[in-house]
Structure formats: C-alpha cells, structure tokens
C-alpha cells in the first residue's frame, strides 16, 4: 500500500501512530517504571525485564547501549522514556539533551542559556 508522504520536521521526531504501534512494548515497560518495585527489578536484570515486556532485539540493544535517539527510532515516546532516563538511570534532561545532540552537558546547557538572549 502506498501511504501519503508524512510531513517531517528536521530533528523533531513525532510520536504518532506509527511510533506508538512500533514502540508499544517498550513504552509499556517504561510505564511500569511508575512503580519502584519495577524500577528495581529492571535494574537487577535489564535484559530479563525487557524480555518480560516483549521488547525486540533492536529495542533491547537501544536500552542496553543507552542510545536515546535509537530508543526514539524504535518507537519510544519521550514522556515514557523520561521515566527510564530520570527515574531509573538518574539522568536529567540536560544529560539526555547532550547525549542526543552530540555535545557535552555544559555545551548543551550553554545553548539553553543562549536561547534566552
């Protein structure tokens, strides 16, 4: 089937139907991180926990390599990934920003400050 071309915005991945469908298992796992018991279980054996939620190989690899852009490309929604990053891995949004944009955290923060001028 040919589907109409989707509008894309450079550097701004959209969590749309395709992403939600691709990432359901991954996002459901992240949603489980609303509970400390689940966060602890994940930390004790990441891959086992991923498999329990039915994540596929590409998703598990993105998890274990802390590949944020990769997690998005396999269907992760940022509000769900935030629970993994913040609540489980202890990263703040500037850590995540730096990881995704290939700069240091200080450089990332400087860019944010610059946006105010």
């Amino acid at each position: 089937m040919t589907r109409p071309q989707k509008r894309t915005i450079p550097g701004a991945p959209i969590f749309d139907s395709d992403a939600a469908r691709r990432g359901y298992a991954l996002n459901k796992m992240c949603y489980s991180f609303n509970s400390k018991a689940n966060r602890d279980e994940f930390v004790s054996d990441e891959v086992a926990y991923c498999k329990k939620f039915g994540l596929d190989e590409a998703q598990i690899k993105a998890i274990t390599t802390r590949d944020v852009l990769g997690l998005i490309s396999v269907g992760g929604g940022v509000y769900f990934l935030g629970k993994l990053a913040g609540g489980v891995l202890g990263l703040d949004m500037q850590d995540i920003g730096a990881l995704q944009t290939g700069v240091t955290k200080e450089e990332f923060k400087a860019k944010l400050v610059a946006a105010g001028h």
Partner: protein
Amino acid sequence: MAKIVGIMTTSHVPALGRAIHLNLQQDPYWKPFFDGFPPIHEWLERVKPDIVVSCYNDHGLNFFLDKQPTFAIGTAPELISTDEGWGIPSMPSFPGAEDLAWHIRDSLIRDDFDMLTCQEMLVDHAFTLPMALMWPDQKWPVKSVPVCVNTVLFPLPSARRCFKMGEAIGRAIASFPEDAKVLVVGSGGLSHQLEGERAGFINKEFDLKFMDSMVNDPQWATQFSDLDLVEKTGNEGVELLNWLVARGTVAGPVKVVHSSFHIPISNTAAATMLLEPV
C-alpha cells in the same frame, strides 16, 4: 452562580518538583522562576478562589497507550499524587470538586465534546506543580477539577478544538448553580523540546508573541496545526494547548495581574501569567 475570577498559566518542568522539595527557591538558578509567584500568592490571599479547574496534560501516570484519551475530566472525590517515575516527591492528595466536575462533564458531552470521564484519578506533576507553586505549604484551600489534554500521541486535538473546549468549559462554569469563585489553571509549555537531534530547541520570539496573544488576541495560536506547533515551539512546546483551553474559558477581555518569562528552567522557556477577566 459560579464565576471565573482568574486564569493562572505556568510551565510545569518536572525538575521544579525536586527544587521545591529541596527548598531551592532562592538558589540563583531557580530564583528567576520562583520570583514569579509572590505576586500570585498575594492575589490568591486577596481573591480566595474556592475551586481550581486545572487544564494540563498527563505524562503517562493516569493514562497509558492502552487507553489514551484525547480529552479527559476527573470527577473523582480525591485526586491522588503518587510515584510517577520521574523522581518527583508525591504531594498530599487533592479534594475533587465533584459537583462542578460532574456539571462540566455533563455539559461538555451535551456540547459534543467526547470526554473520557474518570471517577478515579491519579494526577502527575503537570497538575501538582502549579498547585504547589500557588500554595507552597501544600495545604490545599481549594477543591479541584482536572481536565486533561492529550499531548502524548499525535495527532493531538487541534489548537482550535482546545480553545473551543475551553469556551464550553467557560459556559459550563457560568451555568453552575452554586456560588463559587473559580480559578482556571493552564499548565505546560512554553517552548521546549526534550527529544531528537533538535533537543534543547527554544523559541523566545514565538513564546513572547504567544504570551501577548493570551491578552490581546486569544485565538491567535489556533491558526497552527499540531505539527506547526512542534516546528515553532518544540515537541513539548505543544503543551501550550493547555493554556489555550484555559484562555478559552473567559469569553471577554482579560487584564494582566502578573507575567514573567525566564529562559531556561531545565530545557524549558518557563513562563507564568495571571490574568483577570475585566
């Protein structure tokens, strides 16, 4: 009869939860944001609203993609703050304004808004942080009606649809047959983007224009599609939809009681406004 006494709109950055918890309000990083609130505290002390109608977006606490609503309203007796996985300390739960919530719910359905109705409800930082910013002692002197807008799963409800729902909520409040002073909250934004190669995107020019439009041209932002808003304000900047719902509740003009804007708090252009119907 119930009457809207003000509209308070503010950003709701999760890191604020930690800052509040650790009493960092006077820390140089946080001070520019928290300094927006003393004028609002004075206004609250003077006006003493009875009920807050809070327009916000859930970030995967009460809702997951198994049942993702477009618009939801909470009619629960108690709105519960709990672990949301972001490391934000929980707050005391919030009494629901059940009579008004059901009245708004019924009225919205009759106005062709296809609400999800929640007789139990967990509320995340988008609901709790504005409350804690307004009442730092976290002893809530108000009852609340939570109104939730999908900003998770695209397509989102359009900006125009959000504004129209606000108008319908305003009509519902006006027809509520009980004396009550209602403060409408719009939580979220302004420009920020957490994900992707453009993470850290902020658009000061757009934000200032948008804040101006809240007073002088309230439907200005309804010209933009959800993707337009992503382009102009970042993926999470779309949370300004909650401001539009809130602004829609007052049909006439408003005047600015307070307005502040600071870049950055976390990755966000942080803004706060308090508006009064005139």
